[in-house]
């Protein structure tokens, strides 16, 4: 019997289609694995065991009845807790939404259900997606499957850990400044931030509306493409949704598997993100990957993006400003918890302030206060206004670079997974994790992270980031699939096959360790 949890979504799709396995079998295998290891990993905030098995049984019945089903019908999926699900709590990792069950589904969740995928549960994240480690989740951090003492990245550490520990073949994430790509990098998985507006955000609890984008979290480029095809495309319920018609990302990924797919591709290396100040093993794997690409016929071109050095500064003005406005909706009236002040009169204003004090964690408070400051009269032009100008300059840098090359590459993150607590006391140190990923969000261009090896000094995964011009997500999939094929052929295996096996007994061992 094949170990079902180790198979890609594409392989599961084949076995389900020819009825070698049932969706109930596949779903149960994943649920059992979650039950065995998730005490240790803590990727999930909620597991919907009964609902998942019931949905799987319905898909099996439809298949038996001869219904025409989509390619991912019957395949399990994990859903980041930032997405509204009408049958599961949706907290965005915050106490202020503890237990909230939305009265509607996010559009991406609806599309996933309509395509017959099986939602397994909701995955952990930094509170309201503010963080790079899941340490800011109000419900405790997720652990990196490669080393349980280390962070799985963030904010989408739960989704990345779920796929990289084989608890789910697919997951949904959201990426505002790297929350899909950085977790993918540090867990050895694949994550894609689509073009801004390419995937609906209706029902995605808003962090920063001009930056947020929902995307796939998977173990292979092809699986990401299959999921992208399910969730992408225009949604009239999201006023920022692009009306373009999109090519099949799955077909684009398949094109990358052809021999010679890398020949003549102009690959831009961004001077400002080429490894200065990066961990030595990250830099080394990046340079080796460039050498492999050159050998496969790609043309490596050095490009400069001088304004990227201002990206973090601009981001940490724009994001808090938008977040402070978006999070004003948590007013203790329409959803979430309500907390009365300890003393004094009970007015709406005072109850709202007491609720937000009790319901928001330290990073959320920090960013709301920062955003309120950046938007206040007298500071607006110097901070928020200037940050928006930097955004223009960064878009121009991308335009100039893409005039010379087809894709841009960089390491996905400056370091491998760090240990818990390492960056918790210094907000700026935590913010610097996003140096590589933020420019794509500011400019709206699509970005992907895929594994490019293990850092020799610590044996932990290193990610390659690929960026393409806006709306050319298909190019990411073609190039990404080609790079993945090249790297795996060089290694002779997938990167995740090198991850330590998380046995159920591990859970008891680590509990003893804590004592």
């Amino acid at each position, binding site marked *: 019997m094949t170990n079902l949890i180790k198979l890609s979504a594409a392989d599961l799709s084949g076995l389900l289609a020819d009825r070698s396995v049932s969706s109930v079998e596949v779903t149960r295998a994943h649920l059992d694995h979650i039950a065995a290891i998730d005490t240790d990993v803590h990727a999930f905030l909620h597991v919907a065991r009964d609902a998942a098995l019931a949905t799987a049984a319905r898909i099996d019945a439809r298949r038996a009845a001869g219904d025409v089903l989509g390619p991912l019908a019957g395949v399990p999926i994990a859903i980041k807790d930032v997405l509204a699900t009408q049958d599961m709590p949706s907290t965005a990792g915050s106490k202020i939404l503890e237990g909230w069950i939305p*009265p*509607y589904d996010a559009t991406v969740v609806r599309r996933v259900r309509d395509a017959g995928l099986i939602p397994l549960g909701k995955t952990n994240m930094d509170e309201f997606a503010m963080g790079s480690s899941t340490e800011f989740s109000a419900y405790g951090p997720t652990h990196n499957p490669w080393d349980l003492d280390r962070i799985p990245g963030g904010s989408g550490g739960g989704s990345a850990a779920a796929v990289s520990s084989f608890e789910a073949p697919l997951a949904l994430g959201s990426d505002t400044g790297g929350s899909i790509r950085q977790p993918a990098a540090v867990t050895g998985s694949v994550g894609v931030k689509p073009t801004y507006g390419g995937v609906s955000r209706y029902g995605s609890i808003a962090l920063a509306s001009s930056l947020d984008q929902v995307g796939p979290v998977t173990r292979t480029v092809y699986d990401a493409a299959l999921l992208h095809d399910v969730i992408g495309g225009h949604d009239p319920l999201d006023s920022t949704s692009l009306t373009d018609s999109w090519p099949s990302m799955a077909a684009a990924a398949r094109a990358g598997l052809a021999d010679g797919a890398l020949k003549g591709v102009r690959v831009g290396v961004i001077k400002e993100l080429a490894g200065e100040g990066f961990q030595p093993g990250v830099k080394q794997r990046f340079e080796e990957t460039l050498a492999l690409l050159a050998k496969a016929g790609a043309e490596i071109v050095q490009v400069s993006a001088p304004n990227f050095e*201002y990206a973090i*500064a*601009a981001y940490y003005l724009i994001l808090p400003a938008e977040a402070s406005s978006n999070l004003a909706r948590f007013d203790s009236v329409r959803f979430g918890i309500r907390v009365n002040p300890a003393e004094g009169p009970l*007015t709406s204003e005072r109850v709202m302030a007491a609720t937000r004090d009790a319901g928001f964690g330290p990073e959320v408070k920090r960013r709301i206060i920062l955003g309120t400051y950046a938007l206040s009269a007298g500071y607006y032009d*110097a901070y928020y206004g200037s940050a928006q100008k930097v955004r*223009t300059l960064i878009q121009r840098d991308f335009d100039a670079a893409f005039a010379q090359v087809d894709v841009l590459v960089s390491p996905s993150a400056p370091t491998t997974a760090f240990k818990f607590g390492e960056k918790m006391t210094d907000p700026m140190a935590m913010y610097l994790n996003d140096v590589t990923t933020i420019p794509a969000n500011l400019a709206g261009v699509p970005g992907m992270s895929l594994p490019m090896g293990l850092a020799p000094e610590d044996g932990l995964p290193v990610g390659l980031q690929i960026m393409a011009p806006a709306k050319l997500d298909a190019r990411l999939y073609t190039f990404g699939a080609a790079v993945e094929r090249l790297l795996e052929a060089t290694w002779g295996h997938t990167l995740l096959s090198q991850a330590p096996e998380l046995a159920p007994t591990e859970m008891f061992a680590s509990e003893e360790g804590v004592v």
Partner: protein
Amino acid sequence: MSEITAEQVAHLANLARIDLSPEEINRLTTELGQIVDSVAKVAEVATPDVPATSHPMPLTNVFRPDTVVPSLTVEQALSGAPDHDGDKFRVPAILDEE
């Protein structure tokens, strides 16, 4: 150096409707000063000739056909509220009557 004071942070917290403890205000005053010093560098390149970008993929006049479509029922809309009365959200007093 930025000149963020504890009084300023307390004022911002009031504007943002978050009850912060004196300890939180002190810590945030220090942290905010450091963060603002780091992000202030945006002003170095934000010269008057550069236009501002508020939205990466700007769309204008996003409309849908003016037809009624299903929406949440009153019961659904109230389902997540901490308190409600009949078909309305129930809130504490709006005015502080001394």
